[in-house]
């Protein structure tokens, strides 16, 4: 019996090691990211056409493959464009229906051969221009649900599985109650972890679920920080499985290593561990993860042991209740500090989706702690003394705790989709960049922050074929036709690092502005290049 077990364990270990090595090799392959650039479009951006075009064409600087192509009609309804042809570097998209008059938006998202996604939008009008429709980022619900479910099962695998293996090795003594459940949880996690990688890749590229089989999706997923989480999670799950199925003498150290792996998996990615200061947040997430695994992992084995009234159940309960207080104290402290760093202001608690999820989690935690406190101080003592009726009550209470824990997993997995206020603030300050290319000159313009209000513009001017252009003067002109706002004209200065800067600029309203750069090449020669730029609200 022991021999077949060891052989099985050996095979599992070998398989896991192989999978791990393959993933590590894939993750460490350096990739040269080449950003495909849009060179030409037909119809041109802002064009007014007399009749419906039969097809659209987008020409890029290198061959690309489309991820999402949407045509937004003047009334805001999006139409998915599915029929297209790729010729060399040009993407020709068929227009499926006759278009009514008004301004349409062709929203496109493509991926270059090296896996870097590029997106943009093209405005054109039939007949006469109207107010451009608002292009909302369509939420891909199947993709989102898949990511959420994957994450919940990953949590189940890590916390209930590896945590359960730890409880069985360190707290349960000789008892084996709950081992099947723990094994099932670990297997759940082993399936969910690699799948989550694929879903992560889909989300990173904004691709629909149908693209799941493409290798570039998986490479992208592996390249994100979540790839490290999956690798660590697989390691932890493997160690947990080994501690269950392997020789008993190794069970404790393996389970401890697995528990540490759970902490590493959680700290490797996610909003909480990405926050500053890193020396504080990553260890806190590590500690928080281990605490959850310790607590949640012990629930099922303990509950089952008490229910079946096995011999070591009382000892199990005693060991658990001794250790749980300091663990929960550290867990709660770490959680509070992390929450404060993420939410930043109390008003953001109710104001952002992230904050609202946190409130739900806190409410669930209040229930959980109340139950746990009742268990700990009212029931445990008599249960340890041997009162069977109390033990049954304790079992039921632990069952309810399990359900609350699962609900908390669901809520925490939802944070995947809600950027915390800290991240929202960073995103709002991000610059908006545009590359303007004409025959005689080109410019890389960056407006920081990329939103309405006081901004600073920085640009690098070059000749049409990427050579240096020492301009005598550079003027930036921002105009928004049909807005009633006079064009903003500012002379740029040279801070001395090869770029030109405009500092005293206030963009009054968000939306699509036309930016024009007037480059004085010589006393008698001026080159004017212009392009649209989208300013965020």
């Amino acid at each position, binding site marked *: 019996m022991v021999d077949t077990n060891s052989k099985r364990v050996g095979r599992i270990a070998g398989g896991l090691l192989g999978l791990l090595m393959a993933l590590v090799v894939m993750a460490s392959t350096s990739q040269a990211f080449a950003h495909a650039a849009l060179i030409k479009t037909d119809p041109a951006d802002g064009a007014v056409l007399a009749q419906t075009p039969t097809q659209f064409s987008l020409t890029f600087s290198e061959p690309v493959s489309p991820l999402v192509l949407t045509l937004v009609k003047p009334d805001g309804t999006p139409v998915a464009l599915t029929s297209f042809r790729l010729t060399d570097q040009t993407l020709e998209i068929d227009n499926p229906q006759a278009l009514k008059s008004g301004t349409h938006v062709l929203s496109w998202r493509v991926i270059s051969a090296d896996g870097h996604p590029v997106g943009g939008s093209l405005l054109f009008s039939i007949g006469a221009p109207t107010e451009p429709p608002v292009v909302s980022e369509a939420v891909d619900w199947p993709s989102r649900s898949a990511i959420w479910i994957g994450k919940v099962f990953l949590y189940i695998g890590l916390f209930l599985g590896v945590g359960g293996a730890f409880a069985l090795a360190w707290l349960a003594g000789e008892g084996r109650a709950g081992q099947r459940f723990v094994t099932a949880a670990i297997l759940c996690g082993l399936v969910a972890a690699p799948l989550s990688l694929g879903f992560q890749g889909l989300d990173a590229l904004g691709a629909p679920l149908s693209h799941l089989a493409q290798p570039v999706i998986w490479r992208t997923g592996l390249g994100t920080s979540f790839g490290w989480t999956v690798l660590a999670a697989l390691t932890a799950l493997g160690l947990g499985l080994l501690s269950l199925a392997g020789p008993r003498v190794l069970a404790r150290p393996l389970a401890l290593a697995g528990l540490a792996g759970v902490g590493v998996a959680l700290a490797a990615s996610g909003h909480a561990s990405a926050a500053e200061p890193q020396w504080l947040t990553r260890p806190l997430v590590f500690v928080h993860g281990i605490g959850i695994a310790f607590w949640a992992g012990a629930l099922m084995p303990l509950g089952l042991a008490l229910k079946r009234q096995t011999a070591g159940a009382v000892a199990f309960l005693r060991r658990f209740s001794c250790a749980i207080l300091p663990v929960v104290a550290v867990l709660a402290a770490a959680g509070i500090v992390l929450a404060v760093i993420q939410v930043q202001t109390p008003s953001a608690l109710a104001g952002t989706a992230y904050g609202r999820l946190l409130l739900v989690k806190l409410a669930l935690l209040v229930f959980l702690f109340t139950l746990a406190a009742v268990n700990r101080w009212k029931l445990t003592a008599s249960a340890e003394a041997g009162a069977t009726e109390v033990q049954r009550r304790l079992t039921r209470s632990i069952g309810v705790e399990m359900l609350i824990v699962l609900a908390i997993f669901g809520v925490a997995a939802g944070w995947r989709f809600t950027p915390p206020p800290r991240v929202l603030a960073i995103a709002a300050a991000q610059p908006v960049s545009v590359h303007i290319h004409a025959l005689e000159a080109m410019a890389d313009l960056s407006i920081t922050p990329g939103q309405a209000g006081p901004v600073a513009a920085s640009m690098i001017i070059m000749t049409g074929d990427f050579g240096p252009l020492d301009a005598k003067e550079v003027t930036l002109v921002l105009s928004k036709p049909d807005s009633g706002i006079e064009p903003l004209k500012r002379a740029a200065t040279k801070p001395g690092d090869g770029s030109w800067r405009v500092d005293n600029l206030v963009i009054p309203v968000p939306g699509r502005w036309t930016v024009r750069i007037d480059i*004085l090449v010589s*006393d*008698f*020669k*001026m080159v*004017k290049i212009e392009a649209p730029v989208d300013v965020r609200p």
Partner: protein
Amino acid sequence: MNKYLLSAAALLVLGTNAAFAHITLETQEAAVGSTYKAVLRVPHGCDGKATTAVRVQIPEGVIAVKPMPKPGWTLQTKKGKYEKSYQLYGQAVTDGVKEVDWSGGNLPDEFYDEFVFRAMLTADLPVGQKLYFPVVQECGDAVDRWIEIPAAGQDEDTLETPAPGIKLTPKK
């Protein structure tokens, strides 16, 4: 009826004031292969400031440039090579005046003046197209550059600071 005419006339006079501020050439048409007297009309300074210098760049295909001196202004010319060799009175010329500068003067905004030069429009200039003479107007530290040349198909009226130009007609 009179009121409408008056307001229309007022609109015409005031509305086109912007165009009247441009530096333009008096004779707007010339035949290729002939001598052309270029009269640059300077109706305004730069945003109300007095003009202190007027500089013209001579385009390719215009040779034998002789500017007219102006009292109170320093006249200078810059010579350069032509892109090809032209025939002038039986002789081949390969270089000549490429830029004419009148500087050091003072033309207040409320006064008008003309800057004159003579030039030979060679016979191989494209007939039917426009020939542009970019002009830089300096008023102390301020500069107005009348140097914008419309791209193919672009409407000249959309330019803010168009270069003075003439229409080339066939050789007489």
